[in-house]
C-alpha cells in the first residue's frame, strides 16, 4: 500500500509526538532499569514505534485494543495517562494498575487499553470476543489485537482467525512482525514467512505494510478499520518492522550482528518521519524541536510523578482479587 503524498500537518505532528513519547518513555524505563530502580523485567519496543503510533491513531478513541508483552508503545499511543503508566512500571500505588500489574500488564479500560498480556497468542481470541460484544451492542466500536510474528505460530492465532472469519467479527489482527521471536529468526520457525498469506485459508482480507513508515501504517489501518466496521469482517494487517532494543533485560544480542542493528537504526521510524516532514515542507525544524521538547517534558514529569508516589500497601493485597 502506498502512502498518501499529502500529509495533514496536525496529524503528522501528532503522530511524531506519539512516536517520540513512546521512544522517550522506553528510554527512561531502560535507564532506570539499568540503575536498578525498576523491578522485574521489561520488554522494550524501541524501533517499532511507527506500528504503535500509526495503528492506534487510526482507531476511534474508544475502540478496544489488546496488546502484547511488548506493549508500552501501544498503550502510550492509545492515549493512556503517561504519569500513571510510568508509576505502574515503578510499581507505585498511583500506577494505572495500582502497582499490581507492571510492565507486562498495562491496561486502562477508559481509553480502550484492555491490557498488555504476558502470554503470547491470547490477544487474538480476546479481541474476537470484544468485537463480538461491539457487534451485539452496536456501539460503533471495533477491537484490535496486536501480536508478533512469533505468536502467529500459536494455536490461539489460528483459532481466532477462523472464529473471526466464520462469525464475521469487526476485529483487526495486527502483526508487529519484527522477524524475531525472542532470539529465533522467523526463517527458522516458518516455511512461509509471508504472514499475510495466513489469512488466505480463512477467507480473510489481509495486507502488509512497511511498519517503519508511520503514514503508511496510519492510512492502511484507517482504511481497514472502516472496512472491518462497515462489513463486519476481520482483517489481518502485517506491519514489518524491527526491534533495535533487546528482547528483554537478559538479551545479549548473540543472535544478530551489530551491523544488522545499525542497518535498522538508520531506518528508525522517527528519524525517517522527521526527515520526510522537513523535506516535504510539512513541518519546520522549529516545530519538530517543539514536539521533541514537549515530549521530553511529559516523560520527565511522568518519572517525577512516579518517583514521588508511594508503594502499594501490603494490607491491600486482597483488594481486587474479586470484583463486587
Amino acid at each position, binding site marked *: 500500500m502506498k502512502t498518501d503524498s499529502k500529509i495533514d500537518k496536525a496529524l503528522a505532528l501528532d503522530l511524531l509526538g506519539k512516536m517520540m513519547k513512546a521512544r522517550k518513555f522506553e528510554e527512561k524505563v531502560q535507564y532506570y532499569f539499568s540503575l536498578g530502580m525498576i523491578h522485574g523485567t521489561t520488554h522494550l519496543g524501541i524501533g517499532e514505534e511507527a506500528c504503535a503510533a500509526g495503528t492506534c491513531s487510526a482507531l476511534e478513541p474508544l475502540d*478496544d485494543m*489488546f496488546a502484547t508483552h511488548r506493549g508500552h508503545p501501544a498503550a502510550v499511543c492509545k492515549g493512556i495517562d503517561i504519569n500513571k503508566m510510568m508509576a505502574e512500571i515503578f510499581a507505585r500505588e498511583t*500506577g*494505572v*494498575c*495500582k502497582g*499490581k*500489574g507492571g510492565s507486562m*500488564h498495562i*491496561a*486502562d*479500560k*477508559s481509553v480502550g487499553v*484492555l*491490557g498488555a*498480556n*504476558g*502470554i503470547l*497468542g*491470547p490477544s*487474538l*481470541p*480476546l*479481541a*474476537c*470476543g*470484544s*468485537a*463480538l*460484544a*461491539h457487534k*451485539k*451492542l452496536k*456501539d460503533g*466500536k471495533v*477491537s484490535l489485537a496486536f501480536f508478533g510474528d512469533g505468536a502467529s505460530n500459536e*494455536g*490461539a492465532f489460528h*483459532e*481466532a482467525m*477462523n*472464529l473471526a472469519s*466464520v*462469525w464475521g467479527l469487526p476485529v483487526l489482527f495486527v502483526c508487529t512482525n519484527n522477524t524475531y521471536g525472542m532470539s529465533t529468526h522467523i526463517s527458522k520457525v516458518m516455511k512461509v514467512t509471508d504472514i499475510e498469506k495466513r489469512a488466505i485459508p480463512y477467507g480473510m482480507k489481509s495486507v502488509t505494510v512497511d511498519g517503519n513508515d508511520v503514514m503508511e501504517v496510519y492510512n492502511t489501518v484507517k482504511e481497514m478499520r472502516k472496512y472491518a466496521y462497515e462489513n463486519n469482517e476481520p482483517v489481518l494487517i502485517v506491519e514489518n518492522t524491527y526491534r533495535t532494543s533487546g528482547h528483554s533485560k537478559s538479551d545479549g544480542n548473540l543472535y544478530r550482528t551489530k551491523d544488522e542493528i545499525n542497518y535498522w537504526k538508520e531506518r528508525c521510524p522517527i528519524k525517517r518521519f522527521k526527515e520526510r516532514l522537513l523535506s516535504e515542507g510539512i513541518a519546520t525544524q522549529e516545530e519538530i524541536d517543539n514536539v521533541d521538547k514537549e515530549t521530553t517534558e511529559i516523560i520527565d514529569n511522568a518519572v517525577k510523578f512516579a518517583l514521588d508516589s508511594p508503594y502499594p500497601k501490603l494490607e491491600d493485597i486482597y*483488594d*481486587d*482479587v*474479586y*470484583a*463486587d
Partner: protein
Amino acid sequence: MVEITYANAIKDAISEEMRKDDNVFMMGEDIGVYRGAFGVTGGMVEEFGEDRIMDTPISETAFVGAAIGAAVSGMRPIVEIMFSDFMSVCWDMILNQAPKMHYMFGGKVNVPMVLRTASGGGTGAAAQHSQSLEAMLCHIPGLKVIVPSTPYDAKGLLKSAIRDNNPVMFLEQKLLYRTKGMIPEEEYTIPIGVADVKREGKDCTIVTYGRMVHTCLNAAKQLEEENIDVEVIDLRTLLPMDKEAVLKSVRKTKHLIIVHEAVKTGGLGGEIAASVAETDVFNYLDAPIKRLASEDVPVPFCPILEKGILPDEDKIVKAVKEVLA
C-alpha cells in the same frame, strides 16, 4: 414447588436470565439444534435464536477467549465446555486470562462470565471424559468454583453466577442431569460461597459436594438405622469455600469425614482437613480426620473398575463407624 430435573433447572436458570438481560448469551459446541451433549440446552435456540445460542467451532481457546473478551467489553457470556476434561485445550484462558484481569489491571476490568462444564465420571467414558478437576480450579485466585448437587442448588446458584461480575466455573455433574428435585415456582437465587447442611446430625460430620452428596445421604440413612446420626454438609461453592460451616459442624459432632469424587492426592479433602486442623476446632476432634476420595488413578473404562475406585455407601458407612469406634 414443582419437580424438575437438574438439566432443566440449569436451562431454566439461563433462560430466565436471558429473558431479563439482553447482554446474556451462550456459546458452546453443539448447544443449538443438537441441544448440547447432555441435552441441557434443548429448545433454547428456538426461543432465543442463533445470535444468542451460538454454536462454536471446535476451538475452545477461541470461544472461551471470546467469552472473556466479550465480558470485558460489556456482555455477560455463558460458555459451555462439553466435558470439563477439555479445559486442557484452553487452559491459558482459564488460568492466565479470566481470573487475572481484574487484579492485574488494578480492579478496573471486570470479567462477568460463567463457564459451564460437565464434570465427573460414572458414564463409562474413561480417562479423558470423566475427571473431577475442581481442585485445580480452586488453586486459582480470581475464579469462583461451584459444584451443585441438586436441581434447587443448580438453578439458584447459576442465576447468581450469571449476575456475578467475576469468572465463575460451574461444574455440572454428568450423572445428576436426569435426577429430579423440587424447586419453587417463584424466582429465587442462592448466594455463592454458602454451604448447605443437607442433613442435620450430631455424631459425625461428612463434608462433601456434587454427586457424592447423594451417596453420603444414602449412607447416612443406612447409619440412621443403627442409631448413628450423621450431619452431611454440601459445600456447593468450593471457591470461596464456606469453611465456617465446616468448623461449626465439627465443633458439634467432634468427627470429620470428607468425601469427594476427585482423586485423593491434591484434592480438596486435604484443604478441608487442614482448615480444621489449623484452628482450635482441631481440639474438638475425638478421632483423626478421614478422607474418602477416588483412588489416585486415571479413571478406568471397565465399569467394575470405574465404580471400584470411588467412595460408595458401604465405604462411607465403614468409615463413619471407624471414626466413631
